[in-house]
């Protein structure tokens, strides 16, 4: 900034020359300079005031906005997040399709000891042995007086036991909280639920891990806190499951079978409403798996899913379904059933001789091996395999059990014509009863493939079409006739129009060669009602013998069928099915005259 002089020489000299007072110039310049200074100071003050006011407006605006937002927002608890997590149980419940509890948690306590804190180890050991008879007093005393600083005494104790231990009054005996998995229904649906045990353990808590069944399949889901305690809803129905198990158990004992399984499945969406396998176990106290012997004899073995059996004549429906759908035969086509059918060095026989020929319907109704084999020959090996694969007979079932992927059906490596023939009547291929149930459901529900599931589903898209709707209706009619006048005549339940196919297969010998003479797997795969298929029921008995007659009878018609009929009679009302009068096939108005 250049400083203008107050007395510029040029103007002073000019003023002197004119005789004016040069001081006036100086005063004038001072005035001007003061004016300039005043303006500058005012400018600065004004801008400062502006900034300050803006700052105040912003500050008060902020406070006002915060107050407005607080006033407008919903009141909430500021500390809810830190406390909420503790409320939700460690592992989600499992409920049935109507929300009844199948598995839940119960808070119990574990008992541990810290010997350094103990006052009177001798007395403690003595009293503990009195409360828990399975504990050894000497052993406890050795542990309490030894070098150990910490030891578990009991993993889970009841409140009464806890009180008794309290009353010992020993400061070295301590309790830790333990959540335990409780299956209030005992052995009900044991194979589906599986069981749970403790994983990593600490003093304050122990994690519960699934050991088998859905507990293991959905282990991560059940433990996920993000689900906020939402239970896992299965498709099982507790009442129906209990009824099925009760009837099956009675049937198994009546038929002197060593094992039995039943699967009740919704024919349209594949939901498994009941699945039982006997003998069973209590998942509250899951036995340890057997180390020797046949695993299939263990109660842990889920016959419905893990058991791979040659399911015998129940497979005949597949050959006939395919032949009808391909247009090779219709229900009235006559098939040559003259026996025995000799093919190379093999001979195929029927249970009885059914005469020279039978209609396709009668091949199924009378269960003729020869007739089915001839139909299968018409279909051919390649197409037969395609069809069985489409039905899911070659792959493990996709049901939500850890055991399922291990049960891959056993099928022959090579597929010569003799295999085509034997497979058509269910020999030489082994599948689980669940495979059979899923395949029957797919065939009778109108011909779309279903996926068996244990989870409750609200809506399921129909699967790929396997056979036409018309073929499906024909099959239902054939199955109805099997019950009405064929091998499954004991399966008739008045009002429910049961249709089904029996299957009696000889059990293969343990050695792997040949078949046992008097050991069979008797299976009945049924659908009800055939007029409007709703449910598919598969009942399979392991080594049944029915001894009410002169000689022991082992065929499915005498063993599995009555059991299945009783299951249907008892469960259909529970499933909400009203008994209906069956429309008679050729009922019509007949003109009569008198």
């Amino acid at each position, binding site marked *: 900034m250049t400083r203008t002089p107050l007395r510029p020489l040029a103007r002073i000299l000019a003023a002197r020359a004119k005789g004016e007072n040069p001081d006036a110039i100086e005063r004038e310049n001072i005035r001007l300079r003061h004016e300039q200074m005043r303006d500058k100071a005012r400018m600065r003050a004004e801008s400062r005031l502006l900034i300050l006011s803006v700052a105040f407006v912003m500050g008060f605006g902020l406070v006002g906005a915060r107050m407005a937002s607080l006033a407008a927002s919903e009141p909430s608890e500021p500390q809810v997040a830190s406390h909420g997590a503790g409320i939700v149980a460690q592992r989600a419940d499992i409920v049935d399709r109507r929300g009844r509890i199948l598995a839940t948690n119960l*808070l119990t306590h574990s008992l541990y000891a810290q010997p350094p804190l103990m006052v009177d180890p001798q007395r403690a050991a003595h009293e503990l042995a009195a409360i828990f008879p399975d504990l050894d007093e000497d052993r406890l005393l050795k542990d309490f007086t030894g070098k150990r600083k910490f030891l578990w005494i009991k993993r889970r104790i009841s409140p009464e036991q806890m009180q008794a231990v309290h009353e010992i009054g020993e400061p070295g005996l301590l309790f830790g909280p333990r959540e335990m998995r409780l299956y209030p229904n005992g052995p009900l649906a044991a194979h589906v639920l599986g069981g749970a045990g403790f994983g990593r353990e600490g003093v304050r808590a122990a994690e519960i891990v699934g050991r088998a069944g859905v507990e293991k399949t959905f282990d991560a889901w059940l433990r996920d806190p993000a689900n906020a305690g939402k239970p896992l809803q299965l498709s099982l129905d507790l009442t129906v499951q209990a009824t099925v198990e009760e009837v099956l158990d009675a049937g198994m004992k009546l038929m002197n079978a060593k094992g039995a399984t039943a699967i009740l499945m919704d024919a349209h969406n594949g939901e498994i409403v009941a699945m039982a396998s006997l003998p069973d176990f209590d998942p509250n106290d899951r036995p340890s798996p057997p180390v020797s012997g046949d695993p299939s004899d263990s109660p842990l073995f889920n016959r419905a899913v893990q058991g791979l059996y040659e399911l015998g004549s129940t497979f005949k429906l597949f050959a006939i379904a395919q032949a009808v759908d391909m247009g090779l035969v219709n229900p009235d086509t006559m098939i040559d059933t003259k026996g025995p059918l000799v093919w190379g060095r093999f001979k195929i026989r029927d249970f009885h001789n059914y005469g020279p020929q039978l209609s396709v319907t009668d091949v199924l109704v009378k269960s003729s091996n020869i007739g089915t084999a001839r139909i299968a020959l018409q279909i051919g090996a390649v197409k037969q395999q395609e069809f069985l694969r489409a039905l899911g007979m070659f792959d493990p079932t996709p049901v939500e059990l850890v055991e399922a992927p291990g049960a891959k059906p056993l099928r022959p490596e090579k597929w010569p014509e003799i295999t085509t023939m034997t497979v058509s009547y269910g020999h030489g291929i082994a599948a689980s009863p669940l495979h059979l149930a899923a395949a029957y459901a797919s065939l009778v529900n109108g011909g779309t493939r279903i996926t068996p599931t244990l989870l409750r589903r609200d809506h399921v898209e129909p699967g790929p079409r396997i056979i036409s709707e018309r073929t499906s209706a024909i099959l239902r009619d054939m199955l109805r006739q099997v019950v009405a006048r064929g091998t499954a005549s004991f399966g008739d339940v008045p009002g429910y129009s049961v249709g089904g196919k029996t299957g009696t297969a000889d059990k293969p010998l343990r050695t792997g060669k040949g078949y046992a003479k008097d050991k069979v797997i008797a299976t009945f795969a049924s659908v009800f009602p055939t007029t409007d298929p709703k449910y598919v029921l598969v009942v399979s008995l392991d080594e049944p013998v029915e001894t009410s007659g002169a000689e022991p009878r082992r065929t499915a018609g005498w063993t599995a069928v009555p059991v299945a009929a009783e299951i249907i009679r008892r469960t259909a009302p529970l499933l909400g099915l009203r008994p209906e009068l069956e429309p008679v096939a050729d009922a019509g108005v007949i003109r009569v005259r008198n």
Partner: protein
Amino acid sequence: MRILFAIFTIISVMALAFWAYRENYRTQAELSEMRELQAEIGQLNESLAVLRAEWAYLNRPDRLRELADINFARLGLLPLDPRQFGRVADVGYPAPDLPPITKPVDTVATQDLTQ
């Protein structure tokens, strides 16, 4: 005037401070009550879980079946049977009430006086 304004300001600041102080303590009291409630909810949830488990245990099908068998003489309970389905038409409903009279008809009771 100015003194009045200053006194008014001081009094209002004191009032606001008193109000804020009380609000603060009320909030803290609410918070601690909330913590107590949370703890209580947790305990109640726990006992609810126990009660649910007990309910499920007492209602297990095995036990109900046994109870039904034991009390058969008194209750006569049998498993559900297809024959137990009834029709709505079979239910003996009470006859519907007479509809209210909406259109009264004028009638005059006459007495035969000739008799």
